[in-house]
């Protein structure tokens, strides 16, 4: 990460903001999926492999999330961008664990920040309650633009925080090889447990469970044969 040029960091900040907006506000085009966010972040930083490695693990965690209604869920988009920036240039076996750890922290913070923006939006609506009750279209437009601006600011702040913390970790946290590999193994193991747990919960006891098992058998055979 320390080798990233300022303009690359700016591009990552911009990309992190875009994927944060994509999660809920606009356009919900799946840019915020860790796999997508990580691949593009890795490409921007000149290390696609790092982006894919971080993106795949965080995608496993994201598979455990059902973004339904008012539930608070982690924001993996900016988290993946920050994690990828930290992983760039390091051998993935050594850098992946810490990058995923940073990503998970930022993702959790992202969930809290989403709630704050939702409350902020509610306050804005209360302030314009009279205009809404009078049927003023202008009030609706202002509220909508305000909501989008708030989420943009949230995404930018979250990504910037992730990049800053990543820079600090790289500079001040020196891990020996064994610890770095251990963290990577823990990151992969917990990611697998998240995806498997989410898949079993979603499957219930019907046809979906049978197809899940069939898929797992096919995947295991393919993994062994590779």
């Amino acid at each position: 990460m320390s080798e990233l040029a300022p303009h690359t960091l700016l591009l990552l900040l911009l990309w992190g903001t875009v994927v944060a907006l994509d999660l809920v506000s606009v356009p919900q085009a799946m840019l915020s999926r860790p796999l997508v966010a990580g691949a593009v972040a890795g490409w921007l930083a000149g290390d696609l492999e790092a982006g894919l490695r971080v993106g795949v693990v965080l995608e496993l965690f994201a598979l455990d999330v059902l973004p339904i209604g008012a539930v608070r869920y982690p924001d993996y988009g900016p988290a993946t961008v920050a994690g990828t920036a930290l992983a760039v240039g390091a051998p993935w076996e050594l850098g992946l664990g810490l990058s995923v750890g940073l990503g998970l922290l930022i993702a959790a913070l992202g969930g809290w920040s989403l709630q704050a923006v939702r409350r902020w939006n509610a306050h804005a609506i209360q302030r314009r309650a009279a205009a809404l009750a009078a049927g003023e279209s202008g009030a609706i437009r202002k509220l909508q633009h305000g909501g989008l601006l708030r989420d943009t600011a949230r995404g930018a702040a979250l990504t910037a925080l992730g990049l800053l913390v990543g820079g600090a970790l790289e500079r001040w946290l020196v891990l020996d090889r064994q610890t770095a590999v251990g963290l990577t193994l823990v990151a992969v193991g917990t990611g697998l447990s998240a995806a498997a747990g989410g898949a079993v919960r979603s499957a219930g006891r019907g046809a979906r469970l049978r197809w899940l098992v069939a898929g797992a058998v096919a995947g295991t055979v393919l993994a062994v044969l590779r």
Partner: protein
Amino acid sequence: MTGGWRALLRLLAVQGTWNYERMLGVGMGYAAEPLLEDLKTVDPVRHGEAVVRSAEFFNCNPNLAGLALGATARAEYEAVPGAQIARLRTALCSPLGALGDELFWAGLVPALAGLALAGVVLGAGWWAVLGLLVAYNLVRFGTAVWALRTGYAAGMRVGAAISGSWIPAAVGRIGPVAGASVGLAIPLVAGWYLHGFGWVGGLGSLAVAAVGASVSRWFGPSLTSVRFALLAMGLLLFFRWIGL
């Protein structure tokens, strides 16, 4: 339908003002504005009332919001009593939420994400990522166009239009596809990462996965996968720090 394309684009940001008070309400009002423009010249009083109704509480899956938007806009032009339109909006929240969440969040997204994960592991790289994006957005945008048109064509009979549409059948079919896709991806991803760490490393990582799955079931929602991962990483760092 005047303003249909503008309404469709605005629907992409229907959750732009998501909040705990009106949920999607303001976003729906924003998307309804172009559809209701003609009403302003025909009946300004009705238009004002329609704008108020359009931004009231509403919640559903954002990808199916067009059904409610189209139906209520049509009802406003047909001068259906306001209380009846409000009841229609309320009645649509649960079915559109349940169907949309099953179809998209619990079905299409994990199905495509699983396939993309498998693709990356099998060496497809960018193509797997692009495939995920293109496939999802084709379905999603196609659904949005269909939803707005169907809602507008059906008006107050939108419930019958939904139950007779492709949506219920698709919900039934996408679940097994998602299950198979995620099931396929998990062992492939495990092999991709753990291949180079030898038996000890691989088994250690799988043991962490097994512990994670067990404790998550035991503790339920209080120990999310993120919390478990951060706890496990913190413990590892602590044990290494004290020299274990």
